């Protein structure tokens, strides 16, 4: 357990560092591109790189401290009170006690789909989000299973990593989209002019390739951190409730109707089950899925339960 936590910390720092390097590189290539396009020999590349780096550091800090709020805003989750829903409160509170951690805040997305996720920087500042459909359609044992799964994500510090990725990957995607457009629309006009040296041409090419690849890089980062964690959270969640069948039966219900309206590709990996409709099939489905197949997760839970209650 503690090994997982430090592994996740390292991954978080690694991803932030990668993000900083990526943004700095993009800034540098933009500078070179400007030099190349306007046939000047300025220090734009260094200036823009430093500028980009400063912005990236600010974004990284902001996302470290505010990522949960950004995600809650993105998914339009609202807090609920103990009086409004004592059942959910007692379930989350009880399981937090069993896990020996503070009780997270509880938010609800007003959506009839069945899904849930957790976010926050650390267990003290964590939030568990359920959809209204989940609370209404699951019985106590099933809801306990889902809550325990999310609490395990919090305890493992998966939430910090997952939430920061939402912000940083979102930024990378936006930056690369803007740049791609400006390259494609602005790039042609300059072709008649003479070139400014082979080196800068190569650098511009590298820059373009980097930017072209960035959505793919972003996707790979997102995937690398999310699939195995789901199995881990399933099993440690089941340890918490001492009843794997509860989560297994919840997953069965969730898999039928997990499509959340306010979820998108940037936030998909946070949820307990894929909240975005499946677009890919076959080989690519397995390669690019943010979640392991539900059947496999249920199978593993059933093996854990040794036949009890399944």
């Amino acid at each position: 357990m503690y090994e997982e936590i430090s592994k996740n910390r390292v991954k978080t720092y690694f991803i932030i560092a990668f993000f900083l390097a990526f943004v700095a590189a993009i800034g540098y290539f933009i500078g070179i591109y400007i030099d190349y396009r306007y046939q000047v020999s300025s220090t734009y590349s260094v200036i823009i790189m430093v500028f980009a780096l400063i912005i990236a550091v600010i974004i990284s800090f902001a996302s470290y401290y505010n990522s949960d709020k950004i995600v809650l805003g993105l998914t339009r989750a609202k807090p609920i009170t103990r009086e409004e829903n004592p059942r959910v409160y007692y379930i989350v509170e009880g399981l937090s006690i069993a896990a020996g951690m503070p009780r997270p805040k509880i938010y609800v997305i007003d959506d009839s789909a069945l899904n849930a996720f957790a976010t926050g920087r650390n267990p003290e500042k964590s939030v568990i989000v359920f959809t209204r459909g989940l609370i209404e359609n699951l019985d106590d044992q099933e809801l306990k299973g889902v809550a325990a799964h999310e609490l395990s994500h919090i305890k493992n510090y998966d939430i910090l990593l997952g939430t920061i990725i939402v912000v940083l990957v979102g930024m990378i995607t936006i930056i690369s989209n803007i740049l791609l457009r400006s390259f494609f629309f602005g790039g042609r006009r300059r072709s008649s002019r003479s070139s400014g040296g082979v080196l800068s041409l190569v650098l511009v090419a590298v820059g373009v390739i980097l930017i072209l690849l960035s959505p793919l890089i972003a996707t790979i980062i997102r995937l690398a951190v999310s699939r195995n964690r789901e199995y881990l959270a399933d099993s440690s969640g089941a340890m918490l409730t001492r009843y794997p069948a509860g989560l297994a039966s919840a997953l069965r219900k969730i898999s039928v109707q997990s499509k959340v309206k306010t979820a998108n590709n940037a936030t998909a990996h946070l949820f307990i089950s894929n909240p975005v409709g499946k677009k890919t099939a076959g080989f690519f489905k397995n390669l690019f899925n943010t979640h392991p197949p539900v059947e496999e997760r249920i199978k593993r839970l059933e093996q854990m339960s040794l036949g009890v209650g399944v």
Partner: protein
Amino acid sequence: MLPGIIILIVILVIIALVVIGVGVGYYNSIISIRNRVENAWHQIDVQLRKRYDLIPNLVETVKGYAAHEKETLQKVIEARNTAINAGTVKEQSNAENQITGTLKSLFALSERYPDLKADQHFSRLMEQLNGIESNIAYARQFYNDTVMKFNTRIETFPGNIFARIFNFKNRDYFEIEEESARGPVKVEF
């Protein structure tokens, strides 16, 4: 001759430092688990206090509808008072089992008084009590998990050596009496 002895001494000192370092680390890990056991016990305590505070309210409410059921009400209060004064883990778990038992008879009582069952205040108290009961169960689970880790740590090598030197004792589990309370039992027909 002389350089050989110096090298030997250096090696011995390094080995000694490593052994001491590992030993200190292990000792500290035992202490931190022991503190976690204390913390887990405190968690149970918090939940138990909540229940103690609730019981007089509950008894008062029931009294308003079923004043002549003195015996049952008396038993609940007695069980509560014993539990508050309990010292050791064993005494406490016995007392708690007693409370759970008497509360059950109190709830059974409410079945016979429709007015009581319909009382808003009573149903809210019941809801809170149920929530606290399940929290107690979870706190007990956390406590027992931590106790298991602590006991394993001081029974296995090299923890057992430290246990002998520093007189660490196995902790008691917080036991529950009834089989039915040991976890969700699903019965299918």
